């Protein structure tokens, strides 16, 4: 593989604290040097990053790649391409495939398929319980040996507190974080959107913020009881954010992630009965959106994750209450985050990079998210200014369920480099 020099970009590497114009030299798929005026070895390729930001490869710790089982919606290959186009060099697929990734065979299948077909790194997340049914623990140890890096029953909560306790104890012994989709299903009561003025107005069943909050509260207490590393997936409501901050203040190993859409959209922004605005957790009140943004600013939220959830048009083109939950996220994550957090001055670019790199890497214990010499050369080159419009019809995803089709962004990915190879370029 020829070596590659990324020239004259603003290199932001939160892990080392580096932030300044520099070159990055990549050889044999690893970072060889970061510095100014690096001389490229003969025959090496050069990438001019003038005016651009050069960051460690972005990690999306929460995606749905739908393979095995739902290949009509997405495959590991197409999902990975969408990831690359969104500036991500690593993605972590949730286990709600068919069959569920609850044993080493499925984990190995995902790892092997990704090795052959995915242009980005794929680190699978295994199920907490068999079939993600919330009853019997899955084969957590074997999944770890096969390559799973965390456990979650995402898409569903672990409703039984005793099962959650045992899962936390077991995961701790394997050094894996437990990620929960926090939702008390009884309180959700089959709802389709956030419970509030909008749900009452539209005559749709509501999911109260408390549905998430009661489970976050329970899990934090269980994390303290068990000593497990605990992570709240797609945090969406204000009291959840407060409780994670509380847990952190107590010194518990509790972390959380927020999706770009929960940082950007409230229930009132939803086009009435448009299922491209239907996801779990639902778009909440403006007050909740502000609280999640505030959580990112003050550190209660550790990572931005997309919850990329492809569904084919035939499933999203139905009566609102029949449509499945979830929207695409990989290709628009950076653009939305710049728009919502960086351009209004809520956070700076180094913090943004942290949320996409060291944030998730620390939670998952991944040897990524940095440009330190000797690590695999996963690099995200992006612009904070480039004007572009999201053309859903050109998405690399197999599905089209996004509320951001046609949206004009200021800033987005420019090139994605995985192990020294440019896998996508705008």
């Amino acid at each position: 593989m020829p070596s590659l020099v990324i020239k004259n970009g603003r290199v932001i590497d939160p892990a080392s604290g580096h932030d300044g114009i520099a070159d990055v030299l990549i050889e044999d798929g690893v970072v060889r040097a970061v510095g100014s005026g690096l001389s490229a070895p003969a025959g090496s390729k050069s990438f001019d990053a003038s005016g651009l930001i050069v960051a460690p490869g972005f990690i999306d710790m929460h995606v749905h790649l739908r393979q095995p089982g739902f290949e009509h919606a997405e495959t590991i290959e197409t999902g990975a391409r969408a990831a690359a186009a969104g500036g991500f060099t690593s993605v972590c697929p949730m286990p709600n495939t068919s069959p569920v990734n609850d044993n080493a065979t499925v984990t190995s299948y995902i790892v092997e398929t990704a090795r052959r077909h995915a242009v980005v790194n794929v680190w699978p997340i295994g199920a907490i319980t068999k079939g993600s049914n919330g009853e019997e623990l899955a084969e957590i140890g074997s999944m770890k040996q096969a390559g799973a890096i965390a456990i979650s029953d995402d898409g569903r909560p672990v409703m039984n507190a005793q099962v959650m306790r045992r899962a936390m104890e077991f995961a701790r012994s394997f050094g894996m974080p437990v990620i929960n989709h926090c939702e008390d299903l009884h309180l959700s009561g089959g709802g389709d959107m956030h419970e509030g003025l909008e749900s009452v107005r539209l005559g749709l069943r509501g999911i109260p913020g408390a549905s998430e909050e009661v489970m976050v509260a329970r899990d934090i207490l269980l994390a303290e009881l068990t000593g497990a590393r605990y992570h709240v997936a797609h945090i969406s409501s204000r009291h959840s954010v407060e409780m994670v901050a509380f847990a952190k203040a107590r010194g518990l190993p509790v972390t959380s992630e927020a999706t770009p859409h929960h940082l950007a959209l409230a229930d009132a922004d939803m086009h009435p009965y448009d299922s491209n605005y239907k996801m779990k957790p639902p778009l909440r009140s403006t007050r909740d959106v502000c609280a999640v943004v505030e959580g990112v600013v003050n550190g209660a939220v550790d990572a931005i994750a997309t919850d990329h959830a492809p569904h084919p048009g035939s499933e999203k083109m139905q009566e609102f209450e029949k449509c499945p939950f979830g929207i695409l996220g990989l290709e628009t994550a950076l653009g939305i985050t710049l728009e919502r957090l960086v351009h209004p001055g809520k956070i700076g670019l180094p913090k943004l990079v942290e949320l996409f790199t060291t944030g998730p890497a620390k939670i998952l214990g991944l040897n990524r998210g940095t440009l330190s010499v000797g690590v695999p050369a996963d690099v995200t080159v992006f612009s904070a200014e480039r004007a572009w419009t999201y053309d859903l019809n050109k998405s690399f995803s197999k599905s089209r369920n996004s509320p951001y089709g046609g949206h004009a962004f200021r800033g987005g990915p420019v090139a994605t480099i995985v192990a020294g190879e440019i896998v996508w370029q705008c």
Partner: protein
Amino acid sequence: MGQRSSRSGLLGIEELTRDEIQAILDRARDFQPRAGEAFRKLNLLQGKMVVNLFFESSTRTRTSFEIAARRLGADAVSITAQASSVTKGESLVDTLNTLAAMRPDAIIMRHAASGAPHFLQRYLDTPIINAGDGTHEHPTQALLDARTILDRGAHLENLKVAIIGDIAHSRVARSNVYLLSRFGSRIVLCGPASLLPRELTQIAPGVTLTNDMDEAIRDAGVIMMLRVQLERQHEAAFPANEYFQFYGLRLEHLRLAKPDVIVMHPGPINRGREISSEVADSQRSAILNQVENGIAVRMAVLERVLLGAREHAVASN
């Protein structure tokens, strides 16, 4: 299928202005039969065709629309979900596209899912008239209720209207709230707390809430009772056995209201559950006037949708 935002159908009261509502109510009066007479057969909509597409069972609304269309000289075809390809697994969009390809002038639709007609109207050029969508809106019901109130000589402005029952799941309540609020009525929504979301006070001006039926009825000029919709309850939101005791309308309640109070119910009524037989059959009850006005109001709506708001002024001369 291009996206369009149609204003040509009738999806809800919420998107109508006071003037638009008033025009429909005024026009409906033209269509009311004189005492002791039948509805006149007109030919205003001759050559037009409407499809009644009912995905949820309904006798009165479907029949009422059908009669309204025929009284205006239009052809009306009724399809119920049981008889359609819905039961063969066809999607809602495909069903509607198929029907639209047969070029009806309007589709009258009832569906158990809130927003189903709104969702379809984005993809369909044929105007859709909402005959009730889930727990969202039932615009022609609110229009016929208003026509009935006006016929009894009441003024909507400052009128105290008590709407009592399962508000959370009621499309009739929502449409009535939007309509009455446009005309400055004072609307009191009343029911068990679990069926009375607090956010209701914000959906329109002039709305207050109470869990106390006496308070709701005191000095009311109109009492609208809602059917207890056990089929829309996903869990036990109240103890069913004591519902009538606290939220059933009985004769003694009427003493609290204005002497000329009008008692209304969108039907079908559950005697002994939300309304006593004595009240339902009393002279304060306007339930049968509501049914009669249903036809007149739907004639006005059909004319507006099929001929356009402007043309009918000419047609009425």
